[in-house]
């Protein structure tokens, strides 16, 4: 108890200082977890998120749909794939994230019914492809075609909303290292999704987490897989540039 309090005070001081320095390197949510939670993430045999990665591998290699094709029939090398999302789909020009791209592939290439967002299959496939880029450093978003979406995502992040009239940045920029009851507020980075969240007892997507935050400030949440949330996802990717992919991260 004493150790945990000391640890929190130390971390609080550290991040209060860090959050005051413009342009400081981003700090992963990993640093805000207890040692037990960090250990759970670090050991691939204990990390519960690996169950979704393994299930995703099986799905990825299974033929499906009227076209009777497996994802692996087209995609042999997956390292670096997750780094490219969100991006504009080359054929439709629509902004997609990894999960909505998987849905498009299922519809167009496999001629199958796409997995529902946040379904076990969607989380599994996204976790598998995400984990294939584990450890790779996120790069800044440079595609000029994404600039408008990036700005819209940034605006969503910084706009106060809901009955409690709070912006994402009110907590995840201005209050980093402070305590909301027992929970220390992190910088709100997205570099480990899908994550295994102990509170959920499940893997979950970034969009599920965004909905939780919006509901927390009593704002009307956006839909899973919505354009609004993919724009926020794009901004969060830019904001976390320099952090490494931790998929599947474990959080409290």
């Amino acid at each position, binding site marked *: 108890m004493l150790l945990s309090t000391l640890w929190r005070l130390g971390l609080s001081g550290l991040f209060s200082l860090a959050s005051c320095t*413009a342009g400081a390197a981003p700090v992963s949510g990993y640093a805000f977890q207890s040692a037990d939670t960090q250990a759970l993430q670090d050991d691939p045999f204990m990390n519960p998120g690996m169950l979704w990665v393994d299930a995703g591998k099986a799905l990825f290699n299974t033929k499906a749909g009227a076209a009777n094709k497996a994802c692996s029939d087209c995609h042999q090398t997956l390292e670096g794939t997750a780094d490219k999302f969100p991006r504009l789909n080359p054929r439709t020009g629509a902004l997609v994230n990894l999960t909505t791209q998987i849905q498009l592939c299922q519809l167009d290439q496999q001629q199958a019914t796409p997995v529902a967002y946040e379904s076990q299959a969607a989380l599994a496939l996204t976790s598998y492809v995400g984990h294939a880029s584990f450890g790779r450093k996120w790069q800044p978003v440079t595609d000029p075609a994404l600039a408008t979406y990036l700005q819209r995502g940034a605006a969503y992040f910084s706009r106060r909303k809901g*009955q*409690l009239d709070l912006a994402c940045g009110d907590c995840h920029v201005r209050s980093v290292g402070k*305590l*909301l009851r027992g929970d220390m*507020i992190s910088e709100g980075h997205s570099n480990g999704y899908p994550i295994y969240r102990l509170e959920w007892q499940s893997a979950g997507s970034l969009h599920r987490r965004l909905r939780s935050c919006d509901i927390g400030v009593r704002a*009307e*949440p956006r839909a899973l897989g919505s354009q609004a949330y993919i724009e926020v996802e794009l901004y969060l990717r830019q904001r976390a540039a320099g952090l490494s992919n931790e998929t599947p991260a474990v959080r409290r």
Partner: protein
Amino acid sequence: MRTGVCHWLAAVATVATGSLLTSCATVEPALTDRQPPLVNAVGRYAQGEAVFNSRDSGHCVLCHQLANSRAPFQGNIGPALDGIGNRLDAAQLRFRIVDSRRLNPASLMPAYFNTNNLQQVATEFQGKTVLSAMEIEDLVAFLAAQQTPEA
């Protein structure tokens, strides 16, 4: 880096202004610092304590600390409220609970009795205040009683 220092200085200035507003007893508070009662009823201490602690009500301990509150894991985003009754009278407490951003627009504290100028409010909360007028009177009674002898 220069911007960072500016932010830091701004943060210090905000904190300094905040503590001046709340702890300098010799300064005559401005008229705009006070809010008359929202309802013609006497606030109740015990109900106010429930508003302070309950997750389904004000849940002030989410961000504030108070030694007299028995709630575990108190937050520290806002200032500690021990002895707040020495520093602010009922009308001043009520003013801050109703909408603290009238004093400091950069404050993180939500307005607990306001329905104006809000965006993207969830359907179930549209047109509603976070607390009722009576809950605010109860909370004011609880906070006004938080007095420490040394303060």
